[in-house]
């Protein structure tokens, strides 16, 4: 399949596809970070994670329309405000869901899975009822449009660069929050020994709610970023949920570095293969490889040997 191309063309193809893969990588990382917090740290399966992401996307869409209509002067910076609102909206809904649903199910992970799937159906239908079944897109401010031409063939879109920078910032932030701050330590303490954590004075219910809300909030930001590279529809989130779960499991559920590494591997494999095979076959091959590796090494890429 490489025979038809010259070496420089091949190089450029890999570079371009690699960059496209980096954008996919960013969305994967943003979505997977939220999941890795909720699943990896709390052990809860959140099937509605994609819908939380889409909530962020719709918030961004509303913001874009609002600024266009009422505050055109500030339109160039609306995106940052939208992102903050997306985080707050998704986080608040997450906190509510934790209170209403998740907290009753901490000992029954499989049931959480079913309940959050039900939640995802309700959210999808709500989006459909409110925003319609058609996909919507946001208007990007001028400074995010266009691209930088590196060579004659290779062009780097600016919005892609922006999403990547954003991903980097959030990933670093999450790392510090989960592994270097008191909140992260409390979260892990609660997960590992709920009774003991409560006994040493940690408000376990509050920690649970905060952690879940944080994971959902990050999904909201992922949705914000998502609007820059794709259009938003009621079921757009569901398309990503399986990939994201595989990423988190593949990376070794509790490892942030693993999540990022596996996001990278999967997104790069998929987008590079996409150029040579049809999109669906690229996806089939990527997922099949991941599932195959997981069958051979179920604990994922990065994991610790634990003493039982």
């Amino acid at each position, binding site marked *: 399949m490489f025979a038809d191309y010259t070496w420089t063309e091949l190089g450029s193809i890999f570079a371009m596809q690699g960059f496209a893969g980096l954008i996919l990588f960013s969305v994967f990382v943003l979505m997977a970070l939220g999941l890795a917090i909720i699943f990896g740290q709390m052990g809860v399966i959140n099937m509605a994670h994609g819908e939380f992401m889409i909530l962020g996307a719709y918030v961004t869409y509303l913001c874009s329309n609002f600024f266009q209509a009422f505050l055109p002067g500030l339109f160039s910076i609306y995106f940052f405000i939208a992102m903050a609102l997306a985080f707050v909206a998704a986080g608040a809904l997450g906190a509510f869901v934790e209170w209403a649903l998740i907290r009753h199910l901490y000992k029954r992970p499989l049931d959480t899975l079913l309940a959050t799937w039900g939640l995802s159906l309700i959210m999808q239908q709500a989006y459909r009822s409110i925003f319609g079944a058609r996909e919507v897109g946001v208007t990007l401010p001028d400074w995010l449009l266009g691209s930088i031409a590196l060579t004659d063939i290779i062009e780097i879109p600016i919005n892609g660069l922006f999403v990547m920078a954003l991903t980097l910032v959030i990933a670093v932030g999450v790392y510090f929050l989960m592994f270097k701050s008191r909140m992260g330590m409390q979260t892990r303490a609660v997960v590992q020994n709920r009774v003991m954590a409560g006994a040493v004075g940690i408000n376990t219910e509050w920690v649970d709610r905060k952690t879940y809300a944080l994971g959902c909030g990050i999904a909201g930001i992922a949705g914000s970023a998502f609007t820059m590279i794709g259009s938003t529809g009621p079921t757009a989130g569901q398309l990503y949920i399986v990939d994201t779960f595989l990423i988190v499991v593949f990376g070794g559920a509790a490892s942030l570095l693993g999540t990022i590494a596996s996001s990278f591997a999967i997104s790069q494999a998929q987008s590079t293969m996409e150029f040579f095979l049809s999109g669906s076959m690229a996806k089939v091959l990527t997922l099949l490889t991941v599932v195959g590796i997981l069958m051979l090494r179920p604990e994922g890429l990065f994991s*610790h*040997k*634990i*003493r*039982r």
Partner: protein
Amino acid sequence: MNTLGNNTDFLLSIENLSVSFDGFKAVNDLNLYVDENEIHVIIGPNGAGKTTVLDLICGRTRTTDGSIKFRNKELTEMKEHEIVREGVGRKFQNPSIYEDLSVFENLEISFPRGRNVFGALTFKRDDEVIARVNEIAEMVFLDELLDTQAALLSHGQKQWLEIGMLLIQDPELLMLDEPVAGMSVSERKQTAKLLNEITKGRSVLVVEHDMKFVEDIAHRVTVLHQGKILSEGSMAKVQADPKVIDVYLGH
């Protein structure tokens, strides 16, 4: 003690056994031997590696180095159920029974027949099974409670049920992890009596904290500290050992 090599006189010989978790050596170059018909108790402070030793013998944890021979058969490469079928029974620290099933069914499942898929499908509850279940139930003081759902038993009764589930398999080596933890005084006495009875014709390896209970049952005591043997011998000898007093009994 440590220089015997492949000694076939012992039922179980553990030699140069080590296991490490991410660099932490939970068990370090351990040598331990269990005689026929012996009640051998392992004591030691928390984190000494007592439960890990049991886990290593029964295959729950894989060894990093060393050998575990049972009747001169190497156990370290065998799967858990194969080790059980060789005649090694293991009781867990917390009573590990099937709460949804009745006492009878708990014992019946442990009866060593029909252990593959086809065998389980065609398993018949015949007179031999019923007789054996009744015999064991009487031994572990549960003969009146055969139809009771196991979840409804008291803590001590659950411990006995699990011991019964092991006895029905007639293991040559029985390993018990803190069998009297959480038991009342009278239950302890009954358990000590039970252990002395079931040790006829088999060896028992016990991990225990309760010193009074250890004195009652132990033929030989091994003190573990930080994954290594600190002292070994009769209870009296161990109790007199200054090293032991220093790290454990003195506190």
